[in-house]
């Protein structure tokens, strides 16, 4: 994952700049082991990303897409269907979503992914079949009333 300015909190950005300065100094120092300098820098960056993420990114990571749907489905869908079909649908949703997030795709692409996978998830729960059947029944009923 590429780290951009907007991924880090303001304090995180200051620390990142300090780390970069220190890295430049250490790497230029011929007395220091370069492998060790690189390893130390990577470890520091890893800690920084974990502790100083920007709030919008934290929110996105704390609430991955489909969380609410999953919670609703957990209570309303049978265990087998939930664990097999719904979880598979959501896992594929996450796969595509995070891949697009890494590639920094635009809002339109992210929305398209959300819509497509929400539909797929709802189909996996079987709710849409129920709604379609109810719709057909109502249409038939209205036709009968109309022709009477």
């Amino acid at each position, binding site marked *: 994952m590429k780290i951009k300015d907007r991924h880090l909190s303001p304090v995180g950005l200051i620390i990142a700049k300090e780390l970069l300065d220190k890295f430049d100094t250490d790497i230029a120092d011929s007395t220091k082991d370069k492998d060790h300098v690189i390893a130390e820098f990577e470890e520091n960056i890893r800690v920084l990303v974990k502790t100083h993420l920007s709030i919008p990114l934290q929110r996105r990571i704390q609430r991955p897409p489909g969380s609410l749907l999953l919670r609703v489905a957990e209570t309303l869908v049978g265990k087998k269907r939930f664990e097999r079909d719904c979880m598979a649908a*959501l896992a594929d949703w996450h796969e595509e979503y995070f891949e697009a997030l890494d590639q920094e795709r635009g809002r339109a692409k992210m929305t398209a992914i959300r819509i497509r996978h929400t539909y797929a998830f709802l189909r996996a729960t079987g709710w849409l079949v129920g709604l379609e059947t109810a719709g057909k029944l109502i249409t038939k009923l209205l036709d009968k009333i109309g022709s009477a």
Partner: protein
Amino acid sequence: MTDNPTRLSSLELLVLKMLTNTSGEMYGLEMVEQSGKRLKRGTIYVTLGRMEDKGFIESRKEKQREGARGLPRRLYKPSALGQRVLAEWEMPSGASMGVLV
């Protein structure tokens, strides 16, 4: 098991062919992408679930990959029965076991 296990729909046939032709396992979205729009996101999981009920395919949850942020994916592969049904289906004399619906 509610369905006749030897019945094979066109979508089920397509899924079985894809899973048999691939060397390893596949996940739902991968099948959708490789099917050239013949499989849809909206129907793939229902189809896969039904095929697993019939015993044509087997699935397992993928081990969480390092650095993965989402849920672990579900990987599918053809079962021995699925491979037998497909082989019968592809016999030139016609499908002795299967009935395309």
